[in-house]
Every structure is written in structure tokens, then in C-alpha cells.
């Protein structure tokens, strides 16, 4: 993984930068000791590590603004960081860059039930927002599996999803407002407690921008009333084709479940061995289908889902009878990652999305790749929205095996794009998928995206080395080559 070459001059200026930063922040909010920096050397993609030049932990928007003003003036790179749970290396530090941690932005600022929204600082965890409104029967819908640790600011930066986004949307669909600080220190507010923010939809642009456009210092999200009840169906199938057919039948019947997850045989066994959740072991594919809403609706839809699953050839069919059993159905799925971690020294989690109907084809191809690379692969899948999470098992202590796992992963992602899907559904591009961007986008597409980046950060100081495989200078991107000429197609209809 090639990162932009560190600037020796910046590294040499470290003492001066520390001194300037200590003029902005309290002493203990500027971290320089190597053992303390070590805690920030990687995020959830721990295969890549790098000690940051300095870590700063501001507490106010004014401090963030002063830091970004300083970085702009001094020409220093900056990497924003929430809880560091990114699975794509979005918060990977730079040797010549300052990591800006938002952990001290940990307060909920306003709970507004009348307008059904919460205003929070970016370092508040995803789950804490739900916990703050649960007493009144409300919750925040997007629920990434890291929700106890991941922060709402990070969720915005990555446009995080979760198992319930099939029905309730991703972060971008649940966001109402932001305060952000631009490179140079300017503070901008977008949206608020109303719908459809004025002007261009910069709120939508910021969501999923992976910390390349600005530093988020305040977030307003919509909260929803908790559904009256939720129940789950566990359905086992003799083939992934049959399970895929079941998914298509459910969607085709106009039913949008709250969640619809699929696991393959390897993942089922790994999860069951780990969580002892009583999953059927003699099936090739398992679906967990959750329905939520008023009890009468859930009962009604459960009947229909049961019929559809039977028609699709389900060999095992269980309906959760109570809340404990519903939770038990999910236990194995939620433990799938640690379960795989138990049987392999390391695993590499992929995140492509495909059109749902291509699932059997893609699973078959992954099976073939698995034998070819000699690496095992467990598949868990947000079946409702086509988001695939193959877990490639490898051992980092075996020379060459990480590189092999990465190659295997890249081949899966290329296949996702080839069948009409995309490189990443919810984990982000980061450094991990950066060099694959050319599989999905051509040069013009990528340059256009970078021109947007230039509108926010003309010197590429904010989180450089992420998302874009080639960094073009903004001045070069801004050049325009136009030629005067005749209106083409003289035979076009004109009035």
C-alpha cells in the first residue's frame, strides 16, 4: 500500500508544530509520546499501521477551527478520526500528518422529541443516541454492527448502514444537519431540524466523503418511534439458489423486511460452533428475515413469508415465538466475525454490493476462487440490499498469505462490479479499495470527484492518500481546454 511520500520538511518541523498546537490546546490534548501515539497507529483495518506525527484531541469547534487554520497555513496534512472502527483504513495515520481525534466531542446537545431529532457532537457513539431517547420509545435507525463503539461523526463520514437499512435507510437518509469546519478553519452549518436543506445538497455530499472534505463538529439526526413488535424467521435451504429465490419472492411480494440476512454453510457452522445458537447445520444457506411493526402486521406478514419460504423450498423453517428467541436467531449472525476469528488467525472482511439476483452466480465464483487461492472463505450477506461480506481466512504469519488474501479480495470486488454492483457497500474506500477505484470509474469520473474535493481542500491536506488512486493537483484539474467551433450536428432539430 503506497501512501503519499512523507514530507521530510514537515517531519523536521514537528517541535515547532507541537509548540503552535499547545498554543491552541491544553498540554494533555497534544499527544507526542511514542507509546501514547501507538494507540492511534491503525483503525479497524489493522493490517496497515503508521504512527502519526502528532495527535490532537480538541474539545470545541473553535479549537478544531484553529487547528485547521494552522494546518492550512503550515501546509500540514491532517487525518480526522472518530472511534477508529473503520474497516477500510479511513483513519490510517500519516507519518507527516496530524491525527485529529474527536473523542472529546462526546456530548448530546439537544433531544427534541417535538421535531423528532437529536443534536449530538460527533464523538457520541451510535448506540448512545438510541439510549438517550429509548425511554420515550424512540431510536436512531442505522445500526452498524460496531454501534457500541463507532461514533455518529464517523457514521456520517462513512455513510454507515447496518442490518436494518433495508427498511430504514443509511446514515444519509437519516441525517438532517451538520456543522463542519473546512480546511482553513471556516465553520459552515448545513441543514438543521427541517427537511431538505437549502442550496445544493452538501449534506448528502458530506455523507460518505470519508473525512476528505471537512471535519464534522456537530450532527443532527432524525429519530424514529420504536416499532411495537419485531419477529424473525429462520429459514434453511439446500442451495444458495433456493435462498436467493426466497429473497426475490419476498421482495417481489412487496414485503420490505426490517432486515434480511444470509449466511453460507461455512459461516453457519463457524457461527454455531462459536455462539451455540442452534442453527441448522445440514443446510447450504440460512436466511434470517426480521419483520417489525404493529403486531397484527407482523403476524400477517410472517404468514406470507412462511408461505414464500416454503414455495422457495425451505428445508428448515422456524418462527421466533418470543423476544428471547428472536435475539437468539440473531446471535449467531452477530457473532459471525468473531466466530471466524476463532478458527483462523486472521481474516479479511470484504464489502461489495451486487444486484440481489446475481447472488448464486457470485457465491459459486467465490467458491471457485477459494479453491484456487487455497484460502477458506465464509460468506455473510445483507441479502435484502445485496451487500456481500465475504470473510477471507488467512494467517499473517505465513509469508505471502496476506498478499494472497488481498488478491482474492480484489478479485471478488472486481466480480461485484462486473455483475453490476460496486466496490463497497458500507465500509468505505479508504486506503483498502483506493487502487481499485479504476475498476468502477474511468479517469473523467475520478477527476470530476477530485474537482469536488478541490472545492473544499485545494491543497489536498485533508486525509490525503485515501479514496483516490492518483492525486492530481487542483491547479491541473482546474485547467480547461475548450475549442471554438461550429455547433455540431447541424441536422439537429432546432426551433
Amino acid at each position: 500500500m503506497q501512501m503519499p511520500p512523507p514530507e521530510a520538511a514537515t517531519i523536521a518541523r514537528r517541535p515547532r508544530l507541537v509548540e503552535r498546537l499547545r498554543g491552541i490546546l491544553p498540554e494533555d490534548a497534544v499527544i507526542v509520546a511514542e507509546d501514547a501515539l501507538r494507540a492511534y497507529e491503525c483503525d479497524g483495518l489493522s493490517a496497515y499501521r503508521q504512527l502519526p506525527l502528532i495527535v490532537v484531541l480538541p474539545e470545541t469547534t473553535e479549537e478544531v477551527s484553529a487547528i485547521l487554520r494552522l494546518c492550512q497555513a503550515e501546509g500540514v496534512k491532517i487525518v480526522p478520526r472518530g472511534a477508529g472502527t473503520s474497516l477500510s483504513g479511513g483513519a490510517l495515520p500519516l507519518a507527516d500528518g496530524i491525527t485529529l481525534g474527536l473523542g472529546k466531542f462526546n456530548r448530546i446537545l439537544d433531544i427534541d422529541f417535538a421535531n423528532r431529532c437529536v443534536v449530538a457532537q460527533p464523538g457520541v457513539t451510535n448506540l448512545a443516541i438510541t439510549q438517550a431517547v429509548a425511554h420515550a420509545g424512540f431510536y436512531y435507525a442505522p445500526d452498524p454492527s460496531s454501534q457500541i463503539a463507532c461514533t455518529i461523526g464517523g457514521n456520517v463520514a462513512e455513510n454507515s448502514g447496518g442490518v436494518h437499512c433495508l427498511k430504514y435507510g443509511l446514515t444519509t437518509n437519516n441525517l438532517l444537519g451538520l456543522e463542519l469546519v473546512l480546511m482553513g478553519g471556516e465553520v459552515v452549518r448545513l441543514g438543521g431540524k427541517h427537511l431538505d436543506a437549502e442550496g445544493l445538497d452538501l449534506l448528502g455530499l458530506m455523507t460518505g466523503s470519508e473525512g476528505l472534505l471537512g471535519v464534522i463538529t456537530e450532527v443532527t439526526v432524525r429519530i424514529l418511534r420504536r416499532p411495537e413488535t419485531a419477529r424473525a424467521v429462520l429459514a434453511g435451504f439446500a442451495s444458495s439458489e433456493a435462498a436467493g429465490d426466497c429473497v426475490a419472492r419476498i421482495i417481489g411480494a412487496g414485503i420490505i423486511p426490517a432486515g434480511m440476512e444470509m449466511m453460507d454453510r461455512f459461516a453457519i457452522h463457524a457461527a454455531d460452533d462459536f455462539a451455540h445458537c442452534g442453527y441448522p447445520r445440514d443446510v447450504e444457506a440460512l436466511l434470517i428475515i426480521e419483520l417489525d411493526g404493529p403486531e397484527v402486521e407482523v403476524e400477517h406478514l410472517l404468514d406470507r413469508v412462511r408461505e414464500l419460504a416454503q414455495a422457495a423450498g425451505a428445508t428448515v423453517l422456524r418462527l421466533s415465538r418470543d423476544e428471547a428467541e428472536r435475539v437468539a436467531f440473531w446471535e449467531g449472525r452477530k457473532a459471525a466475525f468473531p466466530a471466524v476469528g476463532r478458527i483462523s488467525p486472521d481474516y479479511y472482511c470484504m464489502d461489495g454490493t451486487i444486484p440481489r439476483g446475481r447472488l448464486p452466480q457470485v457465491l459459486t465464483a467465490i467458491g471457485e476462487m477459494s479453491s484456487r487461492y487455497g484460502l477458506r472463505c465464509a460468506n455473510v450477506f445483507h441479502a435484502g440490499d445485496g451487500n456481500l461480506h465475504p470473510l477471507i481466512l488467512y494467517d499473517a504469519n505465513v509469508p505471502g498469505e496476506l498478499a494472497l488474501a488481498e488478491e482474492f479480495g480484489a478479485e471478488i470486488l472486481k466480480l461485484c462490479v462486473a455483475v453490476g454492483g460496486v466496490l463497497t457497500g458500507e465500509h468505505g474506500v479508504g486506503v483498502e479499495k483506493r487502487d481499485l477505484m479504476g475498476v468502477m470509474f474511468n479517469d473523467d469520473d475520478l477527476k470530476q470527484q477530485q474537482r469536488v474535493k478541490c472545492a473544499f481542500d485545494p491543497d489536498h491536506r485533508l486525509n490525503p492518500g485515501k479514496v483516490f488512486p492518483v492525486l492530481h493537483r487542483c491547479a491541473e484539474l482546474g485547467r480547461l481546454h475548450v475549442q471554438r467551433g461550429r455547433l455540431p450536428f447541424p441536422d439537429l432539430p432546432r426551433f
Partner: protein
Amino acid sequence: MTATVKPGAVAEVRDVVAWAAGEQKPLEIVGGGSKRDFGQPFQAAYRLDLSGLAGVTLYEPAEMVLTALAGTRLTEIEALLAEHGQELPFEPGDWGPIYGLTRGASTLGGVIACNLSGPRRVKAGAARDHFIGLAGISGRAEVIKSGGRVVKNVTGYDLCKLLAGSHGQLMALTEITLKVGPRAEKARTLLLFGLDEVRGSQALRSAAGSPCEPSGLAHLPAAVAARSRVDLVVEAGTSVTAIRVEGPGPSVDYRLARLKETLAVGVRCEELHSMRSRKLWAEVRDVAPLLPDAGRQLWRLSVPPASAAEVAANLRQDLGEGVELLFDWAGGLIWLALPALADAGQAHVRAALAGGGHATLVRADVETRGRVAVFPPLAPGLAALEHRVRAAFDPLGLFNLGRLGLAA
């Protein structure tokens, strides 16, 4: 007189833009032309008519995804979806009648460029939430694509969001991919009669915060309700607060009963079933009850829902008894009709938004729109940022800039 160029293929659109860039000739981008009177009046050298770029290029009901060329008529898309029991969840309106035009001219490109969403926006999200993939021509005459045909996608910046509601100022959109949804098996509407704006908007918010998942939340004051064509609404002879629930039959019955139990205490109420319910929500979506007097100016206000009644009271106080309005989106959207004023009452309208939100002048005669800021004025820092983002797509300012009242 502006000359019109009407390409029939994407490559031709690109060539036209390349020519316009070379000659520095600004273009007015037009689809069906139903919303040409929306925005600041402006003259562009050429009109780029995209209505020749029409047709659905991909529709997979089982994947709930549809791709169409930007000039495809909305009516064609809706009819195709209906054949498969599906619909556009964001329920876009037809704004033609707002400008005195007949229905049916609206194109998908225009709906997306204006980010038009109807009453179901409170539950299902806006047009921008369903816009998952695009192709278009930038002001550099380059074909640009973004997004894809799958819903879950964080590969690169989400340019679809930027283009939704951009009023054609960034790119000439050529192809649009949408997430579509199943049409509900059943729809019913609870009508509460005689509530004032404070109690009406409270009832709407209470329904919105209930587990009943309403998909339409509107309040029509008496004078506005009197102009409905739905018999039970007209005959009410008073204000009407309307709450829609959609879904499987037994669920709709249950949720409607629950809403009635909690909200219709000591209040006269009625229910609208399928056809009448559909008719009322089409009226709300297209603001039909505020349209009959074509001389009236029309504003659209997006506000924090809990501030709706206060905003309405401020508007009545400052602008007098001629004010007519209706609430949609549980009060989060206020449509306001005013007797024609030279400044369209803009100072009062925008002052009424002290609690947050913004206001857009949707209809006024051409002179008034020339004098008034049609779109919400932005804070200086934000305006400068927007300018840079626009320039990133359209450095020469070729596309529709006059419509936004902006300089290149």
C-alpha cells in the same frame, strides 16, 4: 428569441455542451418545460431541450431498480411501475398546473433537478433518497457517471445527492437510476375536522411520533379545505387534518383504529378509503386547493415541524388576512399563497422562519421574480463554498445559472 437544440442521443448532448463551452454560450436546460417559470427569470443564448432523450433503459422489479433517460415523462414511468405493483415511494408532484400548464409534461430529469417529493416524504424519504445512479455531461463536456444500480454503495462521493435539487446548474443529466418500491396493498386516511392550526399540527406530530407509521400528514384550514374536490373534505365546512396510513390490509385497519382512539377524542372525524384517499393526497401533493386564483403568489417553506403553527401565525399577522396556507409533512412543509405583492412579502416570509428552515418563491409573475430572491439566500461562507462546488462541475457557468440568480 432563444434558439432550441434538441438532441436525441447522449453523444449529441455532449457535443452541444462542447460547442457551448467553446463559444461560451450559456444554456437553459429544459425537459418537459413544466417548471420553466420556477426560478429567477433569465435569458440563455440557447435552450438545451432534453425531452428527446426519453425511455426506460432498465427496469428490474425484483431488484426494485429503474433506469431512465432524463427526458422520460414521469407519467410513463409511473404507468410502467404500476403495471408491476410498484411506485415511486417519494410521490413526486406534477407542478405544471402551478404554472397554468396542463398535467403530464413533467420529466424525470426535472423531478430530480428540483428534488420534488410529495406527502410520503415524511415516511419514505425525498427524491434524493431514491436517486442512486447518474450519468450526465459536465460543463467541461465530459460524460460523468456516479453511483450505480444498487442501493448500498459508498464508492466515491455521492454525486447523486448533489445533483438532486441542483436545478440543472451542475450538469446536463442524461440518465437517472432510481430505487423504486412496492405500492401499498391498502391506503386509508383519517380526517379530523375543526382543529385550528395549533391543535391540527399537534395532532400531526403526535401521529408522526406514534408507532402507526403514517405516510401522509397534512392540515387544510377551512377556506382551503373548501376547495378540495373530495366530497367529505368539502362538506366538512371546517378545517381538515388528514393522516394517511398505508400497508397490508389488517395493519392499515389496526393503525387507523389506533390513531382514531388517540386523536379523535372529542373531535368529529371521518375516514377516506382507497379512491377518495388517493384523490385527497394528489391534491395535497400538487397543492391544488391553493391554485385556483392564478394571480396569487406561492411560497414553499421547509421548517422544523414543531414551529409550523407559530410560523403560520406570524405570517397571518405580518401579511394580513389574505394569507392562505396548508401544512404537509406534519407541519414541516408549509405552502403559502398570497395576494400579489410587489416584493412577494419576502421580508415577512423569511422573518417568520426565525425558528429555522427556509423559503422558496415557487410562483410569481416574471417582474416579481426578477426583484425577489426566489431561492433561500445562503450565509456568505456557504454561498462561497457552493460557488466553488458549482465551478468544479461547470467552470464556465454554462448551465441554468440565471435560474438561481447566480453569476458565473
